[in-house]
């Protein structure tokens, strides 16, 4: 193990190198570029024995990745925003074909009112694609999660692609202390990829033909169940990771001071760090505040969420994206999971288009949650130039 001071993008590149990925198709987009640049350097310096394929678009990037993965080798790629959107069509292939591709999405806003800054509305729509999807909080977790991602994705009970999402600029371009594990430890944690099906003339197989109605529905069902089955594997892998590297993240979600909490915020990504500081403040004043860090949007940890929130009076959800017309996507999922819980649920939107989410915003959010008001007709917005309450 060595300690480096690196950005999350570079932490990801180190993880990919340690995972001994073999094929890396890439197309540039800010703020993902640093990942691919460092990987290209590793390869050209002979430090990573892999193929770098400079594709001509993100649609082709995902197509190359699909080809490489169905060809039976460990595959990595990364994108952001418009790039992820251009891949959209191809994202639906790896889940149903059961290809364990790992992709890092460096979150960035998408579409008009354009910008290159952080927002989760690029990756959120893709939670319907069948990819497992996880959000990380800091640079160490970015590195660790890429290693975990391969272990989870390639587990024969799962065999699904996994998208690791990290906050653009806040993490991608900010350096932090990161422990880079040694190759031997990683080799122990992450065995070589053993594909279930692959294109090989010595054993011809028909992979992903047109599927008539007699079979397609069963295939969707199997995919849905495989996503559900990954919950267990995610927990196991986190345990094993903890035993190997000494760091645990809690699997699907992580709780902070939830044992006796009366109210809490659910967050994902870097806002969690800010929220943790506010919980400490509140606790020092004797307030019973807690925090839930949601790590996975897919599989969505419905059961786990019910369990950790069962004694809460009120729960707020932080959304860094918006499903236009009222609420954020995370809130909608949480409300679905906890609809019969009786807990007062509220949605708190902030940090859109790269706007900073400050301690002050989070303090406001917690005091709003403490009031225990369930929100019916839209979310509360924080940091708006004119705030609607």
């Amino acid at each position, binding site marked *: 193990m060595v300690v480096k001071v690196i950005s999350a993008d570079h932490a990801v590149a180190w993880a990919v190198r340690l995972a001994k990925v073999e094929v890396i198709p890439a197309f540039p987009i800010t703020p993902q570029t640093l990942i691919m640049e460092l990987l290209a350097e590793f390869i050209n310096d002979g430090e990573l024995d892999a193929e770098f394929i400079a594709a*001509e678009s993100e*649609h082709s990037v995902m*197509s190359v*990745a699909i*080809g490489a993965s169905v*060809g039976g080798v460990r595959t990595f790629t990364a994108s952001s925003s418009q790039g992820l959107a251009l891949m959209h069509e191809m994202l639906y292939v790896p889940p149903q074909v059961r290809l364990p591709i790992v992709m890092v999405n460096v979150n960035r806003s998408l579409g008009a009112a354009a910008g290159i800054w952080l927002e989760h509305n690029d990756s959120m729509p893709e939670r319907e694609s069948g990819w497992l999807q996880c959000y990380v909080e800091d640079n160490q977790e970015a590195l660790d999660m890429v290693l975990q991602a391969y272990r989870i994705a390639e587990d024969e009970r799962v065999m699904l692609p996994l998208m690791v999402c990290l906050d653009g600029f806040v993490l991608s371009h900010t350096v932090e202390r990161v422990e880079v594990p040694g190759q031997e430890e990683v080799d122990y944690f992450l065995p070589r990829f053993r594909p279930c099906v*692959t294109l090989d003339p010595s054993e*011809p197989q*028909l992979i992903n033909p*047109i599927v008539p109605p007699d079979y397609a529905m069963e295939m969707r069902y199997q995919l849905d169940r495989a996503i559900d089955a990954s919950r267990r594997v995610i927990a196991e892998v986190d345990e094993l990771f903890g035993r190997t590297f000494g760091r645990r993240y809690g699997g699907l979600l992580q709780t902070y001071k939830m044992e006796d909490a009366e109210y809490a915020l659910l967050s994902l990504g870097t806002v969690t760090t800010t929220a943790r500081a506010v919980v400490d403040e509140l606790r020092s004043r004797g307030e019973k505040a807690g925090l839930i860090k949601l790590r996975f949007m897919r599989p969505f940890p419905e059961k786990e969420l019910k369990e950790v929130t069962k004694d809460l009076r009120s729960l707020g959800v932080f959304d860094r994206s918006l499903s236009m017309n009222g609420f954020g996507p995370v809130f909608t999922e949480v409300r679905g999971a906890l609809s019969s819980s009786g807990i007062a649920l509220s949605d708190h939107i902030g940090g859109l288009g790269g706007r900073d989410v400050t301690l002050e915003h989070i303090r406001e959010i917690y005091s709003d949650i403490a009031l225990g008001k369930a929100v019916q007709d839209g979310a509360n917005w924080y940091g708006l130039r004119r705030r609607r309450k």
Partner: protein
Amino acid sequence: MREKEVEKLTIRDVPNKDYFIWGHGACPGCGVAIAVKNIMRILGPETIVYVPASCLVVFGAQYPFSSFDVPYFFSAFENTGAVISGIKAALRRKGKNALVVGLAGDGGTYDIGLQALSGAADRGEDVLYLCLDNEAYMNTGIQMSGATPFGAWTTTSPIGKKIKGKRRFKKDLDHIVAAHDPAYLATLSIAHFNDFVRKVERAKAIAGFRFLHVLTPCVPGWKYESSRTLEIARLAVETGMWTLFESYENESRVTYKPSVMQPVTEYLKLQGRFSNMTEEDVNTLQRWLCMKWWIHYKDQVEAPPCRMFEAERPLAHDGDPLHGV
């Protein structure tokens, strides 16, 4: 296979073991099916096939059945160049040596797939890209593509009161591909089979990016009797609607030159898709063909092939498809 041996190949040298077998669902007389069946015989068992969305993806394999007796994959419409690049990369990593071939339609090559084709050609991927050109989007019901010839009826170039059929000439895809400096480029006809065999063999033997372009008549799309597929394919070459050439090692050469240029009407009259062409349009098409003929065969013809062309040759091409031809 060595160069000399390839030169001597004929229809008799084609293995008769099929890797695209009976039971598929193509229309009787389908040019795509004829081309694929024969190509697969020549490519043999050490082949991996990728098929994008097209007629072939529907008639070639449907879960749980397949007419391909080699590994087969499908994923989308516009990504043939990219997916075959990925598959080949995986094989290289595993130290395996199969031929990776993409079998794409004209829509999936000329239009929506052009970017991925260009990317793969530009990277010099060691793959075989095959365009099965039936001159329209057949799988979705005969819509016009960049490959549709001038004057042809399709459902999106209908014979209207004001506008009659496709108004642009067929896109010159081969020159676009040639501009990428591929390892091998050739046009094929299912009616000129000795030439067909040699070109597929050569494409099989050479490393690097190889592009084969085969004209594949389509019974319902071109509206002809299903027994006439080969006759129409042959007439395409005899009238100049399709030219047989190949290009490799920095050299381009015509591989078959018709002895005389047949009037295009010989080709048009067998097909319902051209049945509503006006005389003026037929002449326009003929003039365009004369120019093409001259460009393709100029080293081998002494005088311009048609009178029409001779009279009008001084006009320069100004970018308008109806001028200067």
